[in-house]
């Protein structure tokens, strides 16, 4: 890094990348992959998301990992962030549930309410 301008350029570019996701209707699936998540089985869940998206030929959804969000007792956790910024937090996932989320939420725009954090808390 030779100058602040360079940092600014990267920041702009990275922000744009996120913005592209947002403007062009790109949904993000973010899976918690800290120790707590992995111990609870986040890896197969992440794989299930990727496989199911591939199987259904869906290319405008990105799957990314992230750190611990804090509610470790609900791991594995994944958040679906829609182009308009709306977030749905899914908890206590397994590969089966991940596939259903792709089918219902990603493809058909119907969040699977029973897997959300709100439902799990009651």
């Amino acid at each position, binding site marked *: *890094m*030779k*100058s*602040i301008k360079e*940092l600014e350029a*990267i*920041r702009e*570019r*990275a*922000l744009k*990348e*996120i913005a592209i996701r947002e403007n062009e*209707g790109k949904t993000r699936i*973010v899976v*918690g*992959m*800290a*120790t*707590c998540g*992995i111990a609870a089985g986040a890896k197969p869940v992440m794989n299930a998301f990727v496989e199911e998206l591939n*199987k*259904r*030929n*869906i*290319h*405008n959804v990105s799957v*990314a*990992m*992230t*750190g*611990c*969000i*804090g*509610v*470790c*007792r*609900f791991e594995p956790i994944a*958040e679906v962030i829609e182009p308009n910024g*709306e*977030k*749905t*937090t899914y908890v206590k996932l397994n590969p089966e549930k991940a596939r259903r989320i792709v*089918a219902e939420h990603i*493809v*058909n*725009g*119907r*969040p699977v*309410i029973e897997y*959300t*954090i*709100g*439902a799990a*808390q009651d």
Partner: protein
Amino acid sequence: MIYRSHVLICHGTGCTSSKSEQVAEAMQRELVERGLDSEVKIVKTGCFGLCERGPIMVIYPEGATYCMVTVEDVPEIVEEHLVKGRIVKRLLLGDKEAKDVAKSLENVGFFNKQMRIALRNCGVINPENIEEYIARDGYSALAKVLTEMTPQEVIDVIKKSGLRGRGGAGFPTGVKWQFAHDAQGDEKYVCCNADEGDPGAFMDRSVLEGDPHSVLEAMTIAGYAIGAKQGYIYVRAEYPIAVQRLRIAIDQAREYGLLGNNIFGTDFSFDIDLRLGAGAFVCGEETALMTSIEGHRGEPRTRPPFPAVKGLFGKPTLLNNVETYANIPVIINKGPEWFASIGTEKSKGTKVFAIGGKINNTGLVEIPMGTTLREVIYDIGGGIPNGKKFKAAQTGGPSGGCIPASHIDTPIDYESLISLGSMMGSGGLIVMDEDTCMVDIAKFFLEFTVDESCGKCPPCRIGTKRMLEILEKITSGKGEESDIEKLESLANSIKKSALCGLGQTAPNPVLSTLRYFRDEYLAHVREKRCPAGICKALIRYVILEDKCKGCGLCARKCPAGAISGEIRKPHTIDANKCLKCGVCMESCKFNAIITQ
């Protein structure tokens, strides 16, 4: 012939009456026109059962379900979905279900009282992608520091912010930086203590796993402030994911020129390396940590000289905890006044706690200093499971103490916890309910320190062992009243005479439980009774005569054959044979077996 896509159109009575036949014809025409009829197959199906919203069309492989499709919608579906591969959102079956369920984490009570500074990026960015960190203002604090501020100005900002060490003791961070800055030396070092060892604490691990660049950026800022060129992160080898993500982060930072020579075109150069600890608790103590980085056996040494004067390799060294560093870039960016406006008079900012034990929401929370224990346990933590009563919370791990239920409304900050005989510690918070025996808890933590004592100084090596022996005597029902006095006098002399922080704080769990739960110790000693029913030697399983139906189930289940009696008459337990496993109590359908 293999089709890449199947379009299922409902031809049940309901959909047919809402013109699905015409939709299918329009689809067929459109496909032929665009030459897609060899790639896409139309399938006329039976009823989907969603007649109210027909005509229904489902397109595979995606499995998109479109409803109320009209002839006019068909060109759009073909163009968008079948040609461009984009789902036509407006036609989707959509979300008709109740919206009152909290869908995202932000809408849940767990989040409302939190304030995320150190954890700002955890669970938000991809930790293995430096650009996501940069997008969220990452490394802009470093840029500002290197191009606009002098080292002394940086230190003044940190001092003004009121930030104190998050490792536990709460020493003012700015003052520490000043000492390291003022120390004379041709070479200086910046170290990060990531040797998190308290049972049940995992704040630092989460920061390293979720936001490693925040620590790298802050260490580089510290390097500039004190005049160091090299940093070391001392991290436990038991944190493989944290280690891996730190390695990736360091490589990326070097690649982007954010570590290395002439950062941001200035003449400041800085680099960071990892040192893996083998998991000894004592290596979290600063002098032992540096001895370990040097490649020697991790043993502490006397202070002074303090590390700021004579630390790693005998050079002036700055050592801060992971969470302390994670706060630095935000303080630089948002200003010390902003940070100082959060928290209490003497404790500024937020603190991350790992909440565990008998609580509903185990996990990681970040709260402003001054939040009460009650808010943490009930509003954020969701209360105690199974309707049990809150008894005490343990903070500070093996170096800390207990906060009893009577002090639940105490605002959490460094001073208030010390005055209660506990300490902030690195942030482990273990919640205990009425079924927890406080003598047993003290014994647990002492077992830990006895195991982890490095053995260099006798008060810690021998003294904690003697204390543990007394506790074992008490919990096995052989305690005498004089033992409690012996415990207290041993504890006080160890506190005064041990070499390092580990020994000096090791008696705290015993002293604090004695302070608030002396009656429990006395019950163990005088009445040979464990009020919580935990200490095995002191409990007895008995069958209540009036409740026992004589079914004989417990006698069959008992692995030791300790239960006898005639069928349909009350049974009895032979205390000499009883293993106190509790199987009989679990199996009894009439609640006729209790512990005494």
